[in-house]
């Protein structure tokens, strides 16, 4: 059998036998991504909705920042966040260096522009007059916002899944602020670095396969949501 085939086979064996704490790493990865996505949604949906609603200069500026944030290199964020978390820095008092909360913070900050930009785009794409009509029938405040986001449902789900996907797959910032400590702060994606530097490509491949599985489930979920909406 070729080298690649051999490696793939070994990787599948390791997945089946839960070798090297693979299940624990998977759960850790999913929990971290779920936490950071939830925080990013809680903060980003209202902001994205507000940016998608109006055309004032402040809102346009916000959109520019959010859209630019989509291209923010995670490594840049990771470096400056790690510096902020060092003892003696503004956030040093938290004692988060090389901890899971630091990873959640980094993933949240990376997911936030995704949620804001995609939500704003979805709200901008609502049929003309839909929200004005709701206002003309008394909808105000959070009720109006909830209605708008519900109508922009497909876009909002896309934002949530894209945020989750970015959190799951993120390596740079996660390694810098979390330290990539095996069995403590490693994720599926960051474990690949550990396995490769330990000369164990089969273990790396096992992590990659699980990661791809998670991404495939996300893709399938989004497709199902899209299809359900098309009567």
């Amino acid at each position, binding site marked *: 059998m070729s080298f690649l085939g051999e490696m793939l086979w070994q990787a599948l064996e390791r997945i089946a036998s839960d070798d090297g704490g693979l299940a624990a790493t998977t759960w850790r990865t999913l929990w971290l991504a779920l936490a950071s996505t939830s925080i990013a949604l809680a903060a980003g949906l209202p902001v994205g909705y507000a940016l998608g609603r109006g055309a004032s200069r402040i809102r346009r500026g916000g959109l520019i920042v959010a859209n630019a944030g989509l291209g923010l290199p995670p490594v840049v964020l990771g470096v400056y966040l790690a510096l902020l978390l060092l003892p003696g820095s503004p956030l040093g008092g938290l004692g988060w260096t090389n901890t899971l909360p630091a990873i959640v913070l980094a993933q949240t900050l990376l997911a936030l522009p995704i949620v804001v930009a995609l939500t704003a785009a979805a709200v901008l794409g609502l*049929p*003309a*007059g*839909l929200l*004005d*009509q*709701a*206002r*003309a*029938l*008394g*909808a*105000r405040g959070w*009720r*109006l916002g909830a*209605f708008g986001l*519900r*109508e922009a*449902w497909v876009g909002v789900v896309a934002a949530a899944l894209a945020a989750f996907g970015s959190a799951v797959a993120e390596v740079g910032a996660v390694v810098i602020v979390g330290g990539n400590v095996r069995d403590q702060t490693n994720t599926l994606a960051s474990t690949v670095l550990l396995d490769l530097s330990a000369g164990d490509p089969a273990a790396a491949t096992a992590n990659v396969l699980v990661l791809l599985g998670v991404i495939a489930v996300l893709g399938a979920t989004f497709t199902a949501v899209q299809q359900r*909406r098309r*009567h």
Partner: protein
Amino acid sequence: MDRRPALLTATGLTVGRGGPPLLRGVDLALHPGEIVAVLGPNGVGKSTLLGVLAGLHEAEAGTVARAGSVAAALQAPALAHRTVRANVEAALGWWGVPRRDRAERAGAALRALRAEGLADRPADTLSGGEARRVHLARALAVEADVLLLDEPFAGLDAPTRAALLHDAASALRHPDRATLVVVHDRAEAWALADRLLVLLDGGVAAAGTPGAVLESPPTERVAAFLGFTGRVEEADGRVLRIRPAQVALDDGGPVAGTVRGRIPEEDAVLCEVAVAGGSVWVRAPYPGPAEGAAVRVRIDGGARYP
């Protein structure tokens, strides 16, 4: 007219959409029990005015005083991605109607517009006419003191429009509600309204009962807009404006003319007849006189302007 205090009073309104103002100095009062129709050419600012009255947009100048709740059905029948019933109930929720009362109120409003059969349909499967029915029912369901409707019959084919107009005429009538409806043509104003406002050239150009305004428009501009297509300058220098219905082809008629143009209609031909001092339009039974034919007409009515 009902002389209870007005439910909505606009004073000196100037409205626009960012550019130069569309309407200036509009005064308007809506009283309980009355239906006011607003008629005007495209782009005159009818929808913008309605948006300001509804509180959706700010006026550039002037004030709107509301002595009751105001609901509006905007021009596009914007319905959410849910069933018809859920759409109406959602509006009742925005309006603050308790959850336990919503189903009954929604049902009653849908019945009033004979749309109860649509209640369980997803809104995005409705035809244009059905969507307009539901759109109207939803606005009625909240039972606002003031109801503002923006072209509720726009974009419908003739039979659908006639049916909805018929149902709306009775559903809209309420002794305590003031209704303002932007209409697309004179027939809708006739069918619905106690009062008619004509918006033209940036302001209210005519106001009164539909009968008074449509029979004798206050100015020649208003007359031309309201279908007084014939125009004849008389010997004394005054201008006579005439609707086609006020002109008949008559071999013994007093006015001689020549057919200048023909517009075939469903079962008649609308003919433009050149006469001394101008031209008149007259509806002739099909096939009607040929272009260039010498005819005689009788003019019965019209409105004169200095």
